[in-house]
């Protein structure tokens, strides 16, 4: 009996939580102005893809010229940047995390302590000088400029190290006796063993890059290089009254990451729970 009551309570809470997301999809399929009627409709009487068409393709503007929201370009920018951030992040943090866990070298303990100490620096403190550095280097309004702060991958290194600690030394030493180089050991033995960790870290990095807002907002002023969140925020400042259009924009921004998360949720949840970085 209590089980049923609690299941119902959870169902109600889940329904309330999911409602804004379902409503976002529903409104994105409504014709212009339909969502603003009273009482607000819950689903479209006549579903239409017109908002997505308007958002994704150029169309005749009010003055006769061609206008567009550059959302297709923003989708491409977001996808490429998130993919690049993920590949670069993994390339930098996987070997380092493994080295800090398993290779013997002078200064290891001290460097690790330094990284742990640096982990407390909030990213926002570095933003303003970083902007000036990139401006002088001519990297504002480039992909490289957006990617740069993410390369300081302390969290990734500590995350990989934690997982790599569990690899038995005997296994690595056996490979060394067989004459395998350290690079070969990393690629052939360590990476396959760390596969779940790699997937989890890749997923976290991709999602974080996809959803990042403050830094791309600062590092990009050229509309053609906007990422989805920046483009969406910009459109909402000009076309905020167009609810249906904005919801279509919210769907194309958030649905890809929701699907990615749903497909890889096992890795995500294990990352949240097992990823507690300990000093």
């Amino acid at each position, binding site marked *: 009996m209590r089980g049923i009551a609690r299941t119902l309570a959870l169902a109600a809470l889940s329904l309330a939580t999911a409602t804004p997301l379902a409503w976002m999809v529903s409104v994105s399929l409504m014709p212009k102005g339909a969502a603003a009627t009273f009482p607000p409709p819950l689903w479209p009487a006549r579903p239409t893809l017109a908002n997505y068409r308007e958002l994704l393709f150029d169309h005749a503007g009010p003055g006769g010229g061609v206008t567009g929201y550059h959302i297709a370009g923003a989708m491409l920018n977001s996808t490429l940047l998130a993919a690049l951030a993920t590949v670069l992040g993994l390339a930098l943090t996987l070997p380092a995390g493994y080295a800090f866990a398993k*290779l013997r070298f002078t200064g290891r303990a001290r460097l690790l302590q330094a990284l742990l100490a640096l982990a407390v620096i909030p990213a926002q403190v570095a933003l*303003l000088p970083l902007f000036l550095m990139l401006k002088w280097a001519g990297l504002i309004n480039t992909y490289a400029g957006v990617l740069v702060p993410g390369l300081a991958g302390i969290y990734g290194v500590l995350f990989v190290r934690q997982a790599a600690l569990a690899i038995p030394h005997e296994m690595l030493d056996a490979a060394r006796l067989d004459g395998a180089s*350290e690079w070969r050991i990393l690629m052939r033995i360590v990476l396959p063993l760390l596969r779940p960790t790699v997937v989890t870290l890749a997923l976290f990095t991709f999602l974080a890059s996809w959803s990042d807002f403050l830094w791309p907002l600062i590092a990009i002023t050229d509309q053609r290089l906007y990422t989805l969140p920046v483009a969406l925020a910009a459109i909402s400042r000009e076309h905020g009254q167009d609810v249906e259009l904005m919801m279509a*924009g919210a769907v194309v*921004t958030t649905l890809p990451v929701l699907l990615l998360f749903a497909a890889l949720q096992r890795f995500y949840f294990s990352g949240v729970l097992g990823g507690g970085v300990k000093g």
Partner: protein
Amino acid sequence: MRRRSQGHAALAFTVPVLVATFAFLVVPTVAGLLLSATDFDIYALADLRNLRLVGLGNYAALAHDPAFWRAVGNTVLLAALGVPAAIGTSLAAALLLDSATVRWKPVWRLLLFAPYVTTLVATALVWRYVLDTRAGLLNDALLLVGIAPVDWLGDPRTSIPATLIFIVWKAFGYNMLVFVAALATVSPELREAARLDGAGPLARFRHVTLPAIGPALVLASVLSVANFLQVFAEPYVMTHGGPAESTTTILYFMFDQGFTWWNLGTASAVAVVLFIAILALTAVQARLAREQEWL
């Protein structure tokens, strides 16, 4: 020989990320401290010869700037209301998910966690419309129970609670997972024994569950405060810091100073103040973690 080749490999494996961390985190952080002691503005941006050292002048100016204190006050209010609301929601959902008799747990867990992975800017926009006075779902639902429409985001008295509804909705899933994991460590024997001793549900929660998950609760609260200190995109998208600056947070104030007015010296001073606040929180957190090990 083997030791030396390990040393070489370790160098090759660690140097790239260490260099990146130094160049893109350590250098800018130190530069931020220095920048906060200058009057870096749009003229210095054009020509560095216009730059002057002002020492602690930016901090003194901030101390006398009511707009800064307003932002601090708003952020403190967000955290003061938001931490209990967020932790409470996470705990309630976790307690429900923890009971052995509940069915279809993975489904509920997925639905309750989904907002956490959504893109903040996108769902902040969704909530801007959910909280709309006339056509919003929330007022529509409240009307069903006889509550008159509220101008959630347009009234300075409700803009912070309204922003909080969104923040809690977006974030509670994370700590829910953490608390479910902590609850799994509560010994079933102890619970059963308490029940046989005639302890009611509240007494059992107070004397069996709470001691077991207490450390996780405290730690999550501290981390939650740190997250509330860094709220930016929510007011940027939902309210533009308004109405009447009622949702201007510390970070929003910093962004505005830095990138709307190009007062990079002042903005850096704000960043340093934020840094110190977060550092203090980290110290509290480290201390709590140590105390837990003594228990």
